[in-house]
């Protein structure tokens, strides 16, 4: 079934899904934290839009609520919290240059092709439309994970983690018409709590290693040499 043969609403869903994938790429390559947070907010907004379209297509009221929740949480609240966090940590203007952004992008493109290849067997169940969006959601998940691998900044890692959650949500909404409301609320609450915890952790990490570079976390071993600890404490005041 080609795109032109689908009902109009599903066409628009595919368009929005493609944009979600694009925001994933932007998140991956965006060096500036604040811009990355904005990209994440856009991703949340797009997913809310998609949920809205699904709600319209399936006439299901609980998806309306779900869309609203997504918008409030992922497009507004969490980005706002992150933004505030970044400002309070005074890293708003930090930009962390990836060493080889093109390589990361190429790896992400390979991941997209790979996820498409993975979901190809679904063709047996003649659910083309579903397969398409599942491929996209899987790619969003994998790119989120890739982002956590290549970025050193802890805040960027949290963004990667959140976009993994976005990918899962996308899959749930587009294939099964959303999770039960009960589960969805639970997940939303989890994400929020995770966000708060991350915020606390950031301050803790920063106090102990004076940076949010996760590559330095390996210094937090039990068998830390004595000398190094002393210099650290010497620096703190």
């Amino acid at each position, binding site marked *: 079934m080609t795109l032109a043969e689908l009902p109009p609403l599903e066409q628009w869903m595919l368009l929005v899904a493609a944009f979600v994938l694009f925001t994933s790429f932007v998140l991956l390559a965006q060096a500036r934290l604040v811009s990355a947070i904005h990209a994440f907010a856009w991703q949340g907004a797009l997913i809310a839009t998609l949920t809205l379209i699904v709600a319209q297509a399936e006439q299901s009221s609980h998806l309306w609520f779900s869309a609203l929740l997504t918008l409030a949480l992922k497009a507004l609240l969490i980005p706002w919290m992150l933004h505030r966090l970044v400002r309070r940590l005074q890293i708003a203007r930090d930009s962390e240059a990836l060493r*080889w952004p093109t*390589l990361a992008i190429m790896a992400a*493109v390979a991941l997209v*092709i790979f996820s*498409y*290849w993975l979901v*190809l067997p679904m063709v047996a169940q003649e659910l083309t439309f579903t397969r398409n969006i599942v491929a996209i959601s899987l790619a969003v998940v994998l790119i989120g994970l890739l982002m956590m691998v290549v970025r050193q900044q802890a805040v960027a890692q949290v963004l990667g983690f959140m976009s993994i959650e976005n990918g899962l949500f996308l899959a749930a909404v587009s294939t099964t018409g959303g999770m039960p409301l009960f589960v969805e609320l639970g997940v939303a609450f989890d994400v929020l709590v995770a966000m708060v915890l991350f915020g606390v952790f950031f301050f803790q990490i920063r106090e102990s290693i004076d940076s949010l570079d996760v590559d330095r976390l390996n210094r937090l071993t039990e068998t830390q040499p004595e000398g190094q600890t002393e210099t650290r404490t010497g620096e703190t005041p």
Partner: protein
Amino acid sequence: MTPPAPLTFAGLAIALALLSALISLASARRPALLRILGMPLLAAAGGVALLGGGAALLGDGAATAELPLGLPWLPWHLRLDALAGLFLVVIGGVTTAVGVYGIGYVRGLEHGRDPLPVLGGFTGLFLAGMLLVVLADDAFVFVIAWETMSLASYFLVAFQHEQPANRRAAFLYLLMAHLSGLAILLGFGVLAAFAGSFEFAALRAAALEGPWASLAFALALLGFGLKAGLVPLHAWLPEAHPAAPSHISALMSAVMLKVAVYGFIRFVFDLLGPPQWQWGVVVLALGSVSALMGILYALMQTDLKRLLAYSSIENLGVIFLALGLALLFLATDHTLPAALALVAALYHTLNHALFKGLLFLGAGAILHGTHERDLEQMGGLLRRMPWTGWFFLVGCLSIAAMPPFNGFVSEWLTFQVALQAWQLESGVLRSLIAIVAAVLALTAALVAACFVKAFGVAFLGQARSRHVRRARPAPLSMRVGQGLLALGCLALGVLPSGVIALLAPIPTELLGQGVAQATALGWLWLTPVSPTTASYSAPLVLLVLAVLVVLVFWSRQWGAVGRLRRCDPWDCGFAPPSARMQYGATAFAQPLRRVFALLFRVEETVETLEDGRRRYRLAIADRTWGLLYQPVARAVEAAARRVTRLQSGNVRVYLGWTLATLLVLLWLIS
């Protein structure tokens, strides 16, 4: 029984080549003999081969012959079909130009200490070997001719052996040529084991089981890929090709690499039977990596001949890319795109022979006129050597795939084939082909940058050294040699439909699918798939361009009556610009070096000399040396050291080993 006509021509060409070799042997006493007889005979051999190949392409059916040579139970089989005919044309065309050019070029060597008989003798033998490879119709002749070609070219690479770098390059070349020969031998061995005979007809009929076919394919890819200089097996090529005298470099880059392409096509498309799609993916990947890496390394070179050698890797990559597309489409039963891809590969083969031959001859003319290979010392040569300069420009535009020259046609065809990817069922392959096409586009743009650099730095601007400022123009024969190839470049670019009509028997013969629709609208239009899909009219592009240039040029009369005054270049109000202020070859490539830094091993050092001045050094090395060659070399050395333990110096111990080996062997065969 007399063999049919095209084969007679081919045999005559081989005879002439051998005669040229024989006569040149006498040039130790009379150096002029090589110039007066040796080179013209070489050109004649080329011309006759060209005629034979042309006759084979135009005629229908293959001509065969058996010679009572070789093993008692296996006479030499020769066969000249359309595919062999095309490669005869490639070899013959370039050799004719090289022969004419050589008349002037070897004159410059007459007063040196280099041994002329070696040069002339092995050139003839080299040519004979290449012609015989193309004509061979059994594996035995093929391998003999192949080894003749490799060995003869080894002596040509080692020709100027006083320089240690050349000796090293020649040794490396010999090593790689042997590895390649071994792989090819084994590949034929696998085929022959199934066929029970060495004749190509029997090999063609043999039905191989899946894994064995893949093994034969892998061996052929290794053998022919080594010879063709595919990345990562390319490291010998930029060392060996520039080491030879320039007209030999032209032969090696423009022709010998094509013989490797011939071998690959013959082996995989003709003898091996139906391909598997995985082969196509492998060839496609190797081709695109070679194309990209080849041109990136070419961009970083400052030695003109090395630059050209690296660019050969790029072009061979493009050819193999098209062949990979052909395999992929063939394996998925889309014969029309497969036939088109094969035509694109063959067209590019022909084109590359012409323009790379032309560019190497141009580099030779510069070397002849200035004794300079380093781009950083050149500049402004267009005014000192106008003929060479304009011919070189034609070569640069052709290789950079600029319409309406020939490189563009084959590149355009390759893109058109890649655009047929929508026919494939697998979305993954579709995406793969699209990405490969993007790599090809990147390559094409980098080629343009590379040859803007080569031509701009060498021929434009001001001379960067004194000997270049006093360059001597090339003698007539050298100009004619270049002119022939330049004319070929333009003709093949402007009349693509004619060329494709000539190439058409080859896909019909190998794949059973013609490309009649490509020229369906007449000689003016090229429509590879159908007129609504894509069309290109090279004659009209040339015509319109020419008319527009003339019109606009003529219209300058409307302005201030075409007044023109010479003045100094703008100096920003400071000192007048000197030649040292120009962008050199390294400076030109610096932005691209920075963008693609990951792929090079760049060593930059700034050292302070005793007198307080600073010296900047830049070395750009090939990463494959460190990643592939040095580990292998170290492993071989380590293994060799282990083996030396056997060497105790005691004769009786050696005899003991011999006895043990004998016993084991007897036990094995019992």
